[in-house]
């Protein structure tokens, strides 16, 4: 077990950008501008991998995670030998099979049977080896009835299943998988995972590139996180996945903050909404008209909302919270002149525009007395009992009859994170109880 199956040393892959010229160079243009030679040399380059090193011991299942465009697939292609690193080296010991695109070599006009043979030969099997495994491949792909039909008549699921079946039966020493375990229906996915487990048991080396963190935590012995072409954390999968999730949350936080800023800027630059002034009833109707999911801001601005922030348990304003956390929504307001008829309102919406909760101080039987100058109102949610997802927030100051001073419609976005993958919108605080004859035990990862 001490031998190294995959040894990547300081792998750098530089791609040429096509920015400085048209999509495809033409000989004519190259000759005319005299840039024939120059165009063949990369001018603007993009480093997809910047010196990544890792070793995968033989028999180890190794996961690579990272955001889109971080270089995972490039790394896999370098290991597979499809592209060569610009500098550095990758050494792989044993027969390699790469599941990068399933059925990549299928010819649509000829039958599944012939495609199995040709695809198998492409993947490095001999005709005899394929003949021996043929029945097994067809059975695995569940295509017994269609194997002699041309591949062009296959559904995409059948196509993928056949591609997967061939690739997995190549029986490699090192299997490279790029996000292809999610083919077919639930049953087929289970079969793939079983096959995958069998590989592990037989001491084969697996390199897995995936976005499925659960898969990494469940199957991998080690993991590597690639970010922007650089190696991040590596080692114990749970630790690596944890580091990755933390980073993703940070990024989401920044992205949401930026998106909110744009939305608010956009709303602020719009003229104060005319209907709100000319027809207070229409404006008053706005929050109640079936909760249209459109962003915007309107109102007379006699009282202005100058800031809305969501504050998490850490006391810091943020955009990403965990389900069950204490979250405070803070409205900062400025009144141009003292007002006596006012109410603060809050509305929570799911991403698809369903109102999860809405209330205001008037509904809560709080009678307005006076509001002068600057002030803040805090809406403290003692437990954010929402399931994972993106939510939008309404914040408003209006008269008790609904006339809007300043109405911010869905200008604020926040995400709720959760370790449990329950569904719906609302997560009631709950626990399960069972009679002694019903026995369940917590599932370990």
């Amino acid at each position, binding site marked *: 077990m001490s031998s190294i199956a995959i040894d990547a040393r300081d792998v750098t892959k530089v791609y040429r950008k096509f920015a400085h010229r048209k999509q495809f160079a033409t000989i004519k243009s190259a000759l005319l501008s005299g840039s024939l030679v120059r165009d063949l040399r990369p001018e603007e380059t993009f480093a997809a991998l910047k010196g990544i090193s890792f070793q995968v011991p033989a028999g180890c299942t190794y996961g690579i995670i990272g955001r889109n465009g971080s270089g995972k697939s490039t790394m896999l292609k370098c290991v597979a*030998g*499809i592209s060569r690193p610009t500098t550095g080296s990758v050494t792989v010991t044993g027969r390699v099979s790469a599941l*990068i695109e399933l059925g990549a*070599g299928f010819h649509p*006009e000829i039958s599944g049977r012939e495609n199995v043979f*040709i695809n198998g030969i492409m993947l490095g099997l001999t005709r005899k080896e394929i003949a021996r495994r043929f029945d097994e491949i067809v059975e695995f792909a569940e295509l017994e009835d269609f194997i002699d039909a041309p591949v062009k008549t296959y559904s995409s699921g059948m196509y993928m299943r056949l591609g997967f079946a061939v690739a997995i039966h190549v029986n490699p020493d090192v299997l490279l998988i790029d996000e292809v375990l999610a083919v077919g229906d639930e049953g087929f996915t289970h079969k793939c995972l079983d096959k995958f487990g069998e590989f592990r048991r037989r001491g084969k080396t697996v390199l897995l590139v995936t976005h499925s963190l659960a898969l990494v935590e469940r199957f991998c012995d080690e993991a590597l996180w690639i970010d922007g072409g650089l190696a991040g954390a590596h080692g114990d999968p749970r630790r690596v996945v944890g580091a990755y999730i933390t980073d993703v949350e940070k990024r989401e936080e920044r992205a949401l903050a930026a998106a909110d800023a744009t939305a608010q800027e956009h709303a602020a630059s719009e003229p104060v909404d005319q209907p709100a002034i000319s027809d207070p009833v229409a404006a008053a109707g706005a929050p109640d008209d079936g909760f249209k999911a459109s962003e915007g801001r309107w109102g007379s601005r006699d009282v202005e909302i100058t800031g809305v922030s969501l504050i998490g348990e850490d006391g810091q304003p943020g955009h990403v919270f965990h389900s069950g956390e204490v979250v405070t929504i803070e409205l900062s307001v400025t009144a141009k002149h003292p007002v006596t008829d006012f109410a603060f309102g809050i509305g929570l919406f799911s991403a698809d525009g369903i109102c999860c909760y809405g209330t205001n101080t008037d509904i809560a039987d709080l009678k307005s007395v006076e509001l002068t100058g600057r002030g803040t109102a805090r809406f403290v949610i003692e437990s954010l009992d929402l399931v994972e997802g993106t939510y939008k927030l309404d914040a408003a100051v209006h008269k008790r009859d609904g006339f809007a001073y300043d109405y911010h419609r869905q200008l604020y976005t926040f995400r709720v994170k959760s370790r449990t993958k329950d569904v719906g919108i609302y997560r009631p605080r709950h626990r399960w109880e069972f009679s002694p004859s019903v026995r369940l035990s917590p599932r370990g990862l």
Partner: protein
Amino acid sequence: MIQNLRNLLKYRGLIQSLVVRDLKARYRGSVLGFFWSFVNPLLLLLIYTFVFTVVLPGMHPKELEPYALFMFCGILPWTWFSSSLLEASGVLISGGNLIKKVLFPAEVLPIVTVLANMVHFFLGLPILLGFLIYFRHPLNITDLAWFPVVVFTQLLLTVGLALIVSALTVHFRDLKDLLANLMTLWFFATPIIYPMQLAARTGEGLSKRVLDLNPFTHLAISYQEILFYDGPFGHWRWLLALLVASAALFLAGYALFDRLRDSFAEGV
């Protein structure tokens, strides 16, 4: 490069299956199916016979009868040559999926193209031989012994050029359109629809010296001498010289292909 060339031998199973696949896929769905490989050259021969006996009688030297058969001796190998190059120009781009997603020896693709077209050439030969016998053209056995040499020379030349064309087209897509016209020009610059003697004797048209520079001239003449003309095969010196040159071209083409190999995964 030597290592890669040696690998090429390992891929012969793959090449073989791909050629078979190509041939099978080509006629899949048509009524006549594989039969088209015979019918196509037959129809072509009939069209040329029609043109040179009905439409344009007397446009050719009288000693070359039947003229359509004479032309057919050159057109059949030319079709192999030009279809191979034209198909090779697009083969890496259309096979991009293989090059980008599977560890796949890219040189297999142009080679398969050339070989698949060679099979079509072979399938056309019985038609040609049938007509030669029908018109009682005596076939000389010693001449026929040269036939495999001619075919092998053409194979080397075509594969060499196909490797170059396919590799360059990845970077210069214009080559594909350029090539289509170039092949038409090349066709007329080769003594296929006119006999070489015409240039040599009358001095009209392209001079003999220009024609001699065209490698396909010697292939066409070899085919004509072996299959059409009576008398011993006298063009063998040129043929052997071309064989050596074609071998060199093949190596050069392979070297170029090998050099550009790494850029394919990004370029296609």
